[in-house]
């Protein structure tokens, strides 16, 4: 239900990290999603797919690393296109 807001927060986090690398473009982001985080993986993937298209960051793939019994909702990596 709140996954659209979570997806927007994820894009904000990605932008904040990217700001540390002026001129760089991200091609892939990694998210650690805890089973007990209160966030549904499928719903978040759907919402992220919708929002990223108009974010100015697309194409930017999202990998979700599921953490059994975990509570995390963390951006854990960005892959940058160095070229």
């Amino acid at each position, binding site marked *: *239900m*709140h996954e659209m*807001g*979570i997806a927007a*927060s*994820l894009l*904000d*986090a990605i932008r*904040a*990290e990217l700001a540390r*690398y002026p001129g760089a473009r991200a*091609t892939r982001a*990694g*998210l650690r999603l805890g*089973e*007990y*985080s*209160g*966030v549904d993986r499928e719903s978040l993937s759907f919402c992220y797919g919708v929002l990223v298209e108009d974010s100015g960051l697309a194409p930017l793939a999202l990998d979700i690393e599921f953490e059994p019994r975990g*509570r995390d*909702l*963390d*951006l*854990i*990596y*960005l*892959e*940058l*296109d*160095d070229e």
Partner: protein
Amino acid sequence: MSRIPLERKVLGENDRIAAGLRERFAAHQVRCLNLISSPGSGKTLLLEKTLGSFRPDRRVAVLTGDIQTDNDAVRLGRYGFPVRQITTAGACHLDARMVDRALEGWQLAGLDLLLIENVGNLVCPTSYDLGEEAKIVLLSVTEGEDKPLKYPGIFSRASLMVLTKIDLLPYVPFDVGKAVEYARGLNPAMDVMELSAMTGQGLGNWMAWLDSAATHGMP
């Protein structure tokens, strides 16, 4: 192509505001409790009975969240204590910024207990820290006793599970033992309490728990 390892909280902005709230609550020795449950589990009635049981000079205030209407604030405002409604206009949870805004103009120094009634929902409120000292989850006996298994996020985080509407136990197939077993399977340290806000059964234990939490911190 290069991969940059990170450990950044997606809800870091909410967590930052919540940390600020927690510091303010601590500075003024305000105990803040966040009540979470399904819609209709009896949060508002329990808070009504709670406020009705306090002495008039009790330093308590309530924030109550709903998607629409100020009905709950009207109900809770009858008891003479400060109450504010947070209407989320569609959002299925309270977040720390909503709480921060709702506290504007209140003197925290005049409080020792702040009760937050979250939007009725067992999923979304789980993700958002409000700066509270503890989350309290309510589970009514008209729901299934397997709710802790279905919604492990909140039951693994809550410090206290309150089983409500126990006056209805003779009429519903709710297994209290199973509910407690499931909840403690996720969260062995969780306190459990049974009560009926309607009849008053168990309300004394709840008030004693609140008094202890307000005076000494979490039991």
